[in-house]
């Protein structure tokens, strides 16, 4: 504060030139934020979500909702990697990090049912494990009935989605129409591509349940 070459009022070290001080402050800011987020370097975003999908998803979360204490809230957008295995089935793929996969405690699947579907839609959601034997390849997570078109938030059991390693999470949606008609094409029922793609809304402990308490003790 007293010009170059004089002594810092607090630590007694030499003051820096304004430019060097600014560069130091920016470096400190980077370190502080990376440490706060438990990251070693800034993430390289190779597949950013489409802006429209991002804006729409953020609007869907509770407006003004606060991130869980000692935790985080995650939105993970679905990608469609497998062609539909049957006329009324679709596989959604999500990419979660190890920590997200291990410590999630609340999960909702948001998807948009198109206005063209007829009547009540019964949708079963399976966790799909392609590497396993046929009988174990999928696990029923939940079944939902939807009677109106538009966006729906389907609560899924978090225990069924947790995993120990970084997870490529695959969910298989199997729908059943009124009268058991299964010949409808999936994209006809659920919008799985573009800006209206489904997404997972997850709540996650950042260090596992109860970490905060441990620190207090």
């Amino acid at each position: 504060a007293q010009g170059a070459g004089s002594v810092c009022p607090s630590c007694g070290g030499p003051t820096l030139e304004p430019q060097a001080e600014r560069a130091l402050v920016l470096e400190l800011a980077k370190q502080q934020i990376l440490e706060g987020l438990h990251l070693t370097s800034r993430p390289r975003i190779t597949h950013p979500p489409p802006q429209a999908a991002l804006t729409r998803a953020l609007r869907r979360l509770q407006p003004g909702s606060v991130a869980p204490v000692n935790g985080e809230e995650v939105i993970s957008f679905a990608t469609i990697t497998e062609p539909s295995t049957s006329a009324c089935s679709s596989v959604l793929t999500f990419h979660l990090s190890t920590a997200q996969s291990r410590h999630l405690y609340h999960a909702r699947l948001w998807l948009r049912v198109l206005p063209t579907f007829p009547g009540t839609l019964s949708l079963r959601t399976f966790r799909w494990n392609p590497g396993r034997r046929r009988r174990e390849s999928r696990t029923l997570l939940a079944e939902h009935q939807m009677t109106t078109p538009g966006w729906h938030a389907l609560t899924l059991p978090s225990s069924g989605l947790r995993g120990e390693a970084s997870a490529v999470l695959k969910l298989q949606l199997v729908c059943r129409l009124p009268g058991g008609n299964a010949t409808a094409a999936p994209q006809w029922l659920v919008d799985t591509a573009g800006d209206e793609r489904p997404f997972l809304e997850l709540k996650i402990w950042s260090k596992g349940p109860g970490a905060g308490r441990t620190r207090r003790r």
Partner: protein
Amino acid sequence: TPTCEPETPLCCRRDHYVDFRELGWRDWILQPEGYQLNYCSGQCPPHLAGSPGIAASFHSAVFSLLKANNPWPLGTSCCVPTARRPLSLLYLDRDGNVVKTDVPDMVVEACGCS
């Protein structure tokens, strides 16, 4: 916390705003656009030791014992943060997921002399 002008020699909070654009991080930090990287600096003469703020903490209790049992002044009193608040961040992780979290103790709210 007294208002801090650059010329103020005493310990106080120095407000400093960092825009994430300056860090080149606007692509992965969605909100906010920047944050207050405040810091504490300034002199702490002996009569200010332990004030304000820290005096209400266990640090001050220990410090009072030290003062009572040792010749005063004991070393230097430093200008340190006495109150901080979290920073809410919305950012993209490497998988393209949107993460919302509160990072604790990120913004210095007040300063005092230890």
